[in-house]
């Protein structure tokens, strides 16, 4: 090993990383080099704290390391530690180095209200991007020695950490082992998103339903942990991913339990009906208008026919056009700045509600069907789940256009069969308990 390998390596690294600062310093009579990324560390405060925690007498390099709780690392790992926001202290000759915790720069968001899952009358602290804060939030919500936290470093992605959280008494050991094993398997893609995480966990990217149920509410996570599931908290993600997901996650939230039991049942029934409406209503419209008008009462069939009198194309095209427009409105309003949001909803509302009908491009009824479908879609719990249903309704619309009512229900039966066949880690997705 070269005498000053740590120092020269760092200096070479600093050439292309100008926020990496290496400065000479004298600590209690010992000349040292202090290195750290100024983008991640508050240098002045860190130095102040270091000096405060040292004894007043002169110290050797080893004594410095001991009194600062430093961890000696080889030259090869030094840069990685610095990138995690640690501070390095190098000996005067640059041959040895230890790292220690530093005062981090203000890069973290404070714990805040949930952004996606607004809930009524329940504790509402939500996860943030920092992993330690999130684990802390969980520990605060669920005070129990039973709560296990394991950090798993994902292979193939630079120092991305995932916290595996579960209850020892509830989670089946084989489930925890299976998930731990899959997480530590080498991944083809760097795991930066849920998509990569899903393909790591299940080996496929083509499932329509996710094995993860994402929530930003610690209270929800603790409820799921009590049901024997495992929560994955990924560094840099402000949601916890609960796995394996289940059909319950489409309809139920823990916060429902803050209401009296009958009301909770009623709320959940609304969500189940919402799922059926969101999935079936556009298809039902196409089936009733285009293929099976005779199943309706004659008065109703006639009034429907009247409303479509001037519409120049078949019901299938009509509803597909309008469904696409509403998808675009939803998609656009997701990412719009708050100041422009109302504009798009107003324009969208006018286009969809009034102008299109007055121009006789679509019938009145389509607007009603569309509104009901869109609203009912968002009664479902979880944005991912709503997205699945949003996507699947198109296949049912197509089947309805071909086979009418029979196609509609063939689609529903197929959907139920598909959902029933899903298993995560050998546990069926379709289970109520």
């Amino acid at each position, binding site marked *: 090993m070269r005498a000053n390998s740590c120092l020269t390596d760092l200096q070479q690294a600093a050439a292309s990383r100008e926020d990496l600062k290496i400065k000479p310093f004298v600590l209690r009579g010992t000349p040292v080099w202090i290195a750290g990324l100024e983008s991640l560390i508050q240098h002045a405060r860190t130095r102040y704290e270091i000096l405060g925690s040292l004894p007043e007498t002169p110290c050797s390099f080893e004594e410095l390391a001991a009194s600062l709780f430093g961890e000696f690392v080889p030259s090869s790992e030094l840069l990685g530690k610095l990138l995690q926001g640690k501070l390095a202290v190098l000996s005067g000759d640059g041959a040895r180095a230890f790292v220690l915790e530093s005062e981090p720069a203000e890069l973290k968001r404070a714990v805040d209200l949930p952004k996606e899952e607004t809930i009524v009358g329940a504790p509402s602290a939500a996860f943030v991007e920092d992993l330690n804060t999130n684990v802390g939030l969980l520990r605060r919500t669920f005070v129990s020695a039973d709560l296990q936290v394991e950090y798993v470093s994902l292979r193939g992605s630079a120092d991305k950490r995932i916290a595996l959280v579960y209850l020892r008494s509830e989670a089946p050991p084989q489930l925890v082992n299976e998930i731990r094993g899959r997480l530590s398997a080498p991944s083809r893609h760097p795991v930066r998103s849920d998509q990569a995480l899903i393909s790591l966990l299940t080996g496929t990217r083509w499932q329509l339903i996710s094995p993860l149920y994402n929530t930003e509410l610690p209270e929800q996570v603790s409820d799921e942990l009590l049901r024997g599931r495992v929560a994955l908290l990924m560094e840099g993600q402000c949601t916890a991913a609960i796995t394996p997901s289940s059909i319950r996650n489409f309809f139920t939230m823990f916060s429902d339990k803050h209401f009296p039991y009958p009301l909770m049942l009623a709320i959940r029934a609304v969500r189940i009906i919402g799922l059926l409406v969101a999935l079936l209503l556009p298809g039902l419209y196409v089936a009733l208008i285009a*293929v099976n008008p005779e199943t309706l009462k004659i008065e109703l069939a006639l009034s429907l026919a009247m409303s479509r009198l001037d519409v120049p194309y078949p019901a299938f095209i009509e509803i597909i056009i309008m469904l696409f427009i509403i998808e675009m409105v939803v998609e656009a309003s997701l990412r719009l700045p708050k100041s422009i949001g109302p504009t798009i909803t107003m324009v969208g509302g006018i286009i969809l509600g009034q102008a299109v009908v007055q121009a006789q491009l679509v019938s009145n009824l389509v607007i009603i069907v569309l509104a009901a479908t869109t609203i009912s879609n968002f009664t479902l719990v979880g944005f991912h789940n709503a997205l699945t249903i949003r996507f699947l309704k198109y296949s049912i619309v197509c089947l309805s256009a071909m086979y*009418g009512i029979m196609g509609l229900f063939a689609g529903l039966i197929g959907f139920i069969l598909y959902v029933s*066949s899903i298993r995560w880690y050998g546990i069926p997705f379709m289970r109520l308990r």
Partner: protein
Amino acid sequence: MQRNPSRLPIYLFIVGTHTGLIFFLYAHATLRTTAYAHWQPAVVYICIEALCLFLLLAGLARVPGKDFADLFIPLGKVASLLLLTPLVAYFLLVSLMVMRSFAELVRIMFVANTPMWALLALLVLLFMFGAFMGGDSILRANVVFSALFLPVLLFALSSCFKNADFHYLYPLWNSSFDFLRKEEFYSSMFVVSPFLVIGMLPSLGPLRPRGVFLTMLPIWALCLIALHIPILVFGTPAARLLVFPFLATMDSVSLLWLVFDRVTLFYAVSIMAFVSVHASFLLWSIGRIVHKRFPKCPEKPVIAAAAVALFVWGLMIPGWDWLQNMLFWETWLRILAVFVIPAAVLWRGLILSRRRAAP
């Protein structure tokens, strides 16, 4: 966290497979066996089913976790083929009949202009999809179907009582028992066959014979009710003429407050769910049995081949009359499947349990 697996899916599955037949082909099949007092053949069917079910369950209970294939394959090449081939053929025939009759019903009800191949393609794809998903998935899906469609079906059925005239029940007694001498009685015996699927259930979950029998009680009651609904509405002579007595009965109901013109709609979609469960499970059973007998044949290609066979066969059947003729031709196969298979299961069960008792 490991809990005992619930038996509810299995019981609901037994209800589901029976429902698919009871409210679909049962009434017509039983009505054509005699001129009046139809409860007599119905009760005889129930007794036959109860007896065969008893044999089957008595056999299965002695060797928990074993299905038809597991029981018969150790008998050797020839014997296992002799027992399993008719069973597979019978499963295929029942799926064919159910599928083809349902296509006929849908054509009458919903899509008169759609070509038969398109209808059969949809049904076959649906059944094949279900079979690919596997037996336990079908069982789970059936729980959802039961929750969604059983209430709808019961609503549609109860609405029929609006037009019922209970005088049509008479005469109650037919002392000649002429149905026993009629070929129709034996060709209609497929209505008791759904109990055979129970023989494929042990690999999916534990069976409790008493639970299965208790599940059958409401099913048998439903059989009697289902049979009498068309009679109560139309009278025996008229009901006997109808190909789909249920459909006609439902068509006769008009509910003012309903958005839809006919309650038939609800009837047909509910039947579709249970028919799919039944046929998918039969296809899956075929795949399972063939795979166990010939381990080199993977399940999915066998299921796909069976589905293609169903499709082609279904297309070759020109119409309803031909379907009825087919019922006559396969009477022997049916008697073999309904009587011989349960007896063979009991025999195997007795032998295996005795062998285990005396090591």
